[in-house]
């Protein structure tokens, strides 16, 4: 023990090395070596007890935990702050110009003597850029005027500035209106817009129905039905009425949109430049400098809600992520539906039915190797086999009227799920095999001795007992599937899917549709966006969300597994 203490002392002093103490450290080190040489048994005992191993394994564990924790913290710190309504600053620069912005970053200038700050200045349509670096030395004064507003717009990102005038439709211009007046006007526009979305839904339905009719007609053409056929004539007439109605509604929609868009407001930016903004393009207005803490919290909650339930806008860098969340969960779900039974049945065959031999060994090696193949290779396989092979055959057989437009012969949820199922099935097979192998022989014998068949033993005794292990496999498979992006990019994920894989049209569950995915979303907005700086907050938010989804799904599965474990494993004898 003395040696250990000595060692710690040396170590504690060594990194600092204050001048004058090197000599002392040297002496201590010599002492340590001397002590070990004098009494080698002591150090032997130290090794024998195994203490270093405990330390090493402990260090390895804490390192793993630490890296996982760091990852979570970095994502959370960057992701959670995004929606907090930050203070809007107005800067007077020494050259006389004025800037309104939110401070986002700070760093030292090249010579290290001063700082420069990055500001989000928004107003992309006026300045072309959302962000600007300003040296602190250039700044004359900083203030936070209460009347500064943030406008979230459908296009061009946010607008920072002041309200100058309100131009409601059919009414006189209001100069110098209050923020409340603006909110009232916005509310009115929003209500009008609401009725437009109803119209939009109607239009979508009409277009869907007319497309179905077109396909039916084409099918009849394909079957070479006489144009004078009464059924065909009826379809044509039906289609005509639909199209007439569609045209009428489109015209109506156009007129209404025009009307709604007549309400505008005039805003000015920091330098006093006027900008007329159509109220219908404004998503939300708030005055961060006036907001109280509770108002900010409320605002934050609203933004989170929008994130979880809203549709994306501005090429995915703003708005909600609902389609991506839905697509991700759906993908994992459908993937599990394939990979779970497939893996379990394969493992049962390998472990319980197959005769141990060369072939089984080869199969097992192949299965294990499958887990090591790069995922993009799976993607290529999925594209070649599922999409072009099976998908195209399905199209030829069942949807010839739609060709050359592919239905299943293009990437979609089904093919992406199947590709991921192939990718994850080795994990399920290996863990199921291990779980089955770990069941004591007495259990099988006990069951057989009572006259059970192999199958009865399997599903009454073995599978329930193996279920915790099988669940572990499924958890690992799900986690892996949730993290995969590469194979999805070529088997069905898109940047923006117009429709969800589930909707009200028969058969309700459209596995052929393309879908959005959080992992791909990160890649897309983080690396493919024209305005990377503006998209960055969303990247962190999306990453955080993806991690959370995996966490939630795994927790549910782990909870289930623990329940099973309690039920099917032995207590102490």
């Amino acid at each position: 023990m003395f040696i250990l203490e000595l060692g710690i002392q040396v170590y504690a002093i060594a990194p600092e090395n204050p001048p004058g103490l090197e000599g002392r450290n040297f002496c201590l080190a010599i002492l340590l070596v001397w002590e070990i040489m004098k009494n080698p048994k002591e150090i032997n005992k130290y090794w024998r007890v195994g203490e270093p191993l405990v330390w090493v394994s402990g260090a390895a564990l804490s390192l793993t935990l630490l890296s996982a924790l760091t990852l979570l913290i970095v994502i959370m710190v960057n992701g959670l702050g995004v929606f907090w309504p930050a203070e809007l600053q107005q800067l007077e620069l020494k050259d006389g110009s004025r800037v309104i912005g939110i401070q986002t970053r700070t760093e030292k200038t090249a010579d290290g003597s001063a700082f420069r700050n990055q500001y989000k200045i928004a107003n992309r349509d006026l300045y072309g850029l959302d962000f600007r670096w300003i040296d602190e030395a250039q700044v004359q004064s900083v203030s936070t005027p209460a009347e500064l507003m943030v406008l979230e717009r459908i296009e061009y990102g946010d607008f920072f500035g002041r309200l100058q005038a309100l131009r409601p439709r059919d009414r006189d211009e209001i100069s110098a209106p209050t923020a409340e007046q603006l909110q009232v006007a916005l509310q009115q526009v929003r209500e009008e817009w609401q009725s437009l979305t109803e119209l939009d839904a109607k239009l979508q339905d009409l277009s869907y129905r007319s497309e179905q009719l077109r396909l039916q007609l084409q099918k009849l053409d394909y079957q070479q039905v006489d144009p004078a056929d009464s059924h065909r004539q009826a379809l044509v007439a039906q289609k005509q009425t639909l199209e007439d109605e569609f045209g009428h509604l489109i015209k109506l929609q156009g007129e209404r949109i025009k009307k709604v868009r007549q309400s505008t407001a005039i805003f000015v930016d920091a330098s006093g430049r006027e900008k007329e903004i159509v109220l219908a393009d404004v998503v939300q207005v708030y005055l961060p400098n006036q907001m109280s803490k509770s108002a900010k919290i409320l605002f934050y909650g609203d933004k989170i809600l929008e994130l979880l339930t809203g549709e994306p806008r501005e090429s995915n860098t703003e708005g909600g992520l609902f389609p991506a969340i839905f697509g991700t969960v759906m993908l994992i779900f459908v993937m599990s539906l394939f990979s779970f039974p497939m893996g379990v049945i394969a493992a049962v065959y390998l472990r319980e039915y197959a005769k141990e031999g060369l072939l089984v060994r080869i199969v097992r090696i192949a299965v294990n190797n499958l887990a090591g193949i790069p995922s993009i290779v799976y993607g290529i396989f999925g594209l070649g086999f599922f999409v072009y092979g099976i998908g195209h055959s399905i199209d030829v057989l069942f949807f010839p009227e739609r060709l050359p437009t592919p239905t299943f012969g293009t990437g979609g949820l089904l093919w992406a799920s199947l590709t991921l199922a192939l990718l994850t099935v080795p994990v399920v097979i290996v863990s199921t095999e291990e779980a089955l192998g770990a069941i004591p022989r007495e259990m099988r014998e006990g069951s057989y001795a009572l006259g059970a068949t192999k199958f009865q033993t399997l599903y009454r005794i073995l599978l329930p007992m193996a279920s915790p292990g099988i669940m572990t496999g499924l958890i690992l498979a799900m986690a892996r599937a949730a993290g995969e992006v590469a194979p999805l990019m070529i088997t069905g994920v898109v940047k923006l899917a117009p429709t969800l894989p589930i909707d009200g049209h028969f058969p309700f569950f459209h596995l052929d549709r393309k879908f959005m995915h959080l992992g791909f979303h990160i890649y897309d907005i983080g690396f493919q966006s024209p305005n990377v700086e503006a998209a960055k907050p969303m990247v962190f938010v999306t990453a955080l969300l993806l991690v959370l989804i995996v966490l939630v799904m795994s927790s549910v599965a782990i909870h289930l597994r623990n329940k099973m474990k309690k039920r099917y494993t032995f207590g102490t004898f």
Partner: protein
Amino acid sequence: MTTVTVKIDNPVIEVENLRFYYGDSRAIHGVDLRFPEKQVTALIGPSGCGKSTLLRCFNRMNDLVDGSRVEGKVLLGNENIYDKNTDIIELRRKVGMVFQKSNPFPKSIYENVIYGLRIAGENDKNLLDERVETSLKGAALWDEVKDRLHDSALGLSGGQMQRLCIARAIAVNPKVILMDEPCSALDPKSTARVEELIGELRENFTIIIVTHNMQQAARVSDYTAFLFEGNLIEFGLTERLFVKPRNKQTEDYITGRFG
């Protein structure tokens, strides 16, 4: 070379020139043996003499072992169980088994007892309830578990678990119960209870028990067969075999000179 000192009429199980192979090596070299009805027969012998293997031949449990092979005949009521047409499921219902290590299934006590009936397709609640009660009473476990029939069987003590396994075996009403060292993992008190139980079961079932413990064989069995290196050395009434063994090897073994 086999010394048989007793003649059995109307045997339940009759073994004729049984040879058993693990791959190429022969583990049992031609055994002829007849097991009397509603009696306890003990198989004794040193480790590796083939007594467990022999026992497992009677309900074809050895079929599960890869590369095993059986020659000769085992007749159960005039039918050779190694006949091609034998229904193994039916056979195992007639010949129940209790193992060395108690192996209750991870189910409730109730479900454990009726497992054999359930897999046979029996679902009549009244019959199952009745069978659970009679079986558990038969295994002297009823009083201890009647209030927690639907609790997990894994919560029972070691001795209770072994009695549950016995209850499970008798629930399907077999002719013969094979016991493979049923007490080797139990404490003395539980052992005593199981031994007592074997004495009671004798009234309704034929029991063949493998044991390492010669005192146990002497206590519970009516007949004893001594096996050595895959051969049946001596078979006779227990009292006689232990008191006056005819064969030199038997004598050496029961007097503790080897084994």
